[in-house]
C-alpha cells in the first residue's frame, strides 16, 4: 500500500489542538502521528507517564485526548497499561467487552529510560499486547531540563551544567532501544520526524498491529532544553539522522533492519552546532569533546550496521 502524507493528515485527530505543549515541541507530533496509525474503527486506551505531555494535555476539567486516557504516576506507565490490557483481555474473554481496543503508553525519557525502566521491562517481559512509545527529548524537561540517562555526553543540562571544570554531562547516553530489543519482544523500532513522516507512520502502524508488546523510541526534540529556534525542529531531527546520532532502525521478531543509510554521513558538528546545549563544545580548546562524541557515534553506528548486516 502506498504511503501518502496527505491521506495520513486527512484522518481524524485523536489528540486535539489547544493543549499546552510548547510550540516546536516534538512530543505532541509523535503522539498525533502514532495515534493516526490506529484504525478509525478501533478504540484505543492511552496511558501517560507523568511528564510535560501528561500535565499539558489533561488539566481538569479539560482533556485533549479523544480516546480513553489514564495517568497514574511517573514511573509506572508500563505497569498501568499492562493492567488495562489485562482487564480488557479478561473482560473480553468473559464476554463483558465486545469492541477491539489498542493500548498505547507514552513516556518521556525520564519515565522510560530512568524511573519507569523497571515497570517497562516487566511489562515487556510479561508480553502484554501493547505499544510503549518513548518520546525521547533527552532530559527531564517537565521539571526544568535536568539530565537523564538519555542526555547525550557533554550536553549542558541543569543538573549536569557545563562549568569551569565539568564539561556538561560526563556520561554517555544509554542505548535504550537496544536494551529493549534484548527483551526479544516482537517489534522494536527507533524513529523520528523525517521528510513525509513515512518512517514513523509505518513503524507506528506495525507496532500497533503486531500482537504482543512493541516499543517505539521517537527522538522528540525540545526547543527549550535543546535551545534551538522552534521552527527548526525538522532540521534538527534530519541532522540527527544524517549524522547517525539517531539512526533509524527496527527489530522485527529479532531481525535487525537498518531503515536509512545516509549517502554522505555528516560530521557530528553539523547536528551539535545547531543547539545551545552543546555550545560550550565549540569553545577553543574543547575540540576533544567533539572528537570524543564523533568517535562514540561512529562506534555505535558500526555496531548497528553489523547487527543489520548493512
Amino acid at each position, binding site marked *: 500500500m502506498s504511503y501518502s502524507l496527505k491521506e495520513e493528515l486527512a484522518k481524524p485527530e485523536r489528540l486535539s489542538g489547544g493543549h499546552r505543549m510548547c510550540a516546536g515541541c516534538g512530543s505532541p507530533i509523535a503522539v498525533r502521528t502514532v495515534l493516526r496509525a490506529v484504525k478509525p474503527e478501533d478504540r484505543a486506551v492511552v496511558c501517560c507517564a507523568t511528564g510535560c505531555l501528561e500535565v499539558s494535555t489533561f488539566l481538569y476539567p479539560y*482533556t485533549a485526548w479523544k480516546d480513553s*486516557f489514564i495517568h497514574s504516576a511517573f514511573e509506572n506507565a508500563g505497569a498501568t497499561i499492562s493492567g488495562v490490557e*489485562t482487564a480488557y483481555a479478561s473482560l473480553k474473554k468473559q464476554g463483558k467487552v465486545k469492541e477491539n481496543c489498542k493500548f498505547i503508553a507514552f513516556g518521556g525519557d525520564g519515565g522510560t529510560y530512568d524511573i519507569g525502566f523497571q515497570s517497562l521491562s516487566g511489562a515487556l517481559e510479561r508480553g502484554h499486547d501493547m505499544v510503549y512509545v518513548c518520546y525521547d527529548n533527552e532530559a527531564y524537561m517537565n521539571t526544568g531540563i535536568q539530565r537523564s540517562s538519555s542526555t547525550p555526553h557533554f550536553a549542558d543540562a541543569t543538573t549536569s551544567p557545563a562549568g569551569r571544570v565539568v564539561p556538561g554531562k560526563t556520561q554517555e547516553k544509554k542505548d535504550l532501544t537496544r536494551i529493549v530489543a534484548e527483551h526479544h519482544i516482537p517489534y522494536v523500532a527507533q524513529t523520528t520526524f523525517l521528510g513525509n513522516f513515512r518512517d514513523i507512520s509505518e513503524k507506528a502502524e506495525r507496532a500497533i498491529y503486531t500482537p504482543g508488546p512493541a516499543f517505539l523510541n521517537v527522538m522528540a526534540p525540545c526547543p527549550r532544553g535543546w535551545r534551538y529556534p522552534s521552527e527548526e525542529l525538522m532540521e534538527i531531527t534530519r541532522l540527527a539522522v544524517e549524522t547517525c546520532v539517531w539512526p533509524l532502525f527496527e527489530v522485527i521478531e529479532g531481525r535487525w533492519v537498518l531503515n536509512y543509510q545516509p549517502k554522505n554521513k555528516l560530521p557530528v558538528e553539523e547536528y551539535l552546532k545547531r543547539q545551545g546545549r552543546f555550545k560550550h563544545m565549540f569553545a577553543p580548546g574543547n575540540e576533544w569533546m567533539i572528537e570524543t562524541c564523533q568517535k562514540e557515534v561512529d562506534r555505535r553506528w558500526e555496531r548497528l550496521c553489523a547487527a543489520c548486516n548493512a
Partner: protein
Amino acid sequence: MGIRERLSGNEAVAYALKQINPDVMGAFPITPSTEIPQYFSQYVANGEVDTAFIPVESEHSALSACIGAEAAGARAVTATSSCGLALMWELLYVAASSRLPITLACVNRALSGPININNDHSDSMGARDSGWLQLYAETNQEAYDNMLQAMRIAEHPDVQLPVMVCQDGFITSHAIENIELVETDAVRAFAGQYRPEHSLLGPEPMSVGPYDVPAYYMEHKRHQAQGMINAKRVILDVAREFERMTGRGYGLIETCRMEDAECALVLIGSSAGTAKAAVERLRAAGKRVGLVKIRAFRPFPAEELAAALQNCGAVAVMDKCAGFSAAGGPLFAEVCAALYGAAPRPLLVSYTYGLGGRDVTVDSMERVFGELEETLRTGAAAEPCRWLDVRG
C-alpha cells in the same frame, strides 16, 4: 448452608477471592502474604476462576496494574505485606483519589528496618491516611468474612474507595483454624460484579488521573472525604446483609464485657483473642474489665468508641505500631481525640506492644489490666505512654 473447613488465614482469603472470582489479580510475593497469590495462581492455572493473573515485577507495579485494571472496569485485587505495602505507598493515594475500589489483602508484618518478617501493624498503620478503608480481623473466620464483604463496601456508589482487608501475619495467616465457608453460589450472589458508571472500556471514553489545579483539587478531596464518611453506614448495611446470609454479625467495633467495665482495653487484630481470655479470667475473679476490638479502623469509629468507653474509669489503648510521635501510638492518639468531647471520660494510657512478632500472652494482658487498676486507684496515669513486655 455453611461448609465446615480447616484453613489458614491466607488460604481462607485466597479461597474467598476464588469464590468471588474477580477479573484481575496483580501481585508480587512477600512474606507472609505470599501464599495468597500462590494459592490464587493455582486456581487460575486450573481454570477454576475467570481471573487474569498479572505476575508483576514489584508491588509498585502490582498496584499500578490494579489501578489500570480497575479503571478499565475490572474488579482488581492484590495482596501484600510490610515493605511491599511501603513500595505501593505512592499508588495507595492515587488509587483512593481516583476513586478506584481495589481490594488489597494485607497480611500485617513489621516494616524494615531492621528487617523482620513477623507481625505488627506498622505497615497498614502507616497507610492509615492514604484514603483506603481498613478492616481488621481477629480470626481466620473474620479474615474470610471481611474479604467477602469488602468489595460490596468499597464499590458502593456512596463510597468508591479502595479497601484493605487486614489480618495478622503468621498469627492468623499461617495458623490453621476451624472455619465456616459460605457456598460459592451464595458468595457470588452476595459479592455481585463490579459495574462502574464509567470506565476506560465503557461505551464513552473516560479520562483518569488529570493534573488538578487549585480551583478544583480541594473539592475533589472533599468528595473523597465524603466517601469515607459514607463508608461507616455502608459497612453496617453490608454487615447486616451478611448476617442474614451467614448468621455472623459484624460492626465497626466489637465489644466484650463492656456493659459495666471499669477498666478496658482497645486493640486491633488477633490479640483480641488473647485479651478476651484475660477478660474472662479476671471477670471470674470478680474484676469489672472489658475489651473493645476495632474492626474498621478506616473509617474511624470515633462516636462508637466514645459511647463504648466513656463510662470506664481507665482505658489502655494498645498499638501494635511504635508510631514514634513521642506521644503514644496512632490508635492512642485517635482514641484520645474520639473521647475528648465525652463527659465523663476515662483516664487513657498508651501501650505499645507486640512489635516484630513479640509474643503477647494472657498474662501480659492481665498485667495491663493490673496497671489500669493502679491508674484508677491513684486517679492519674504516671506514665501515659508505656511499652509492654520490653527489656530496658
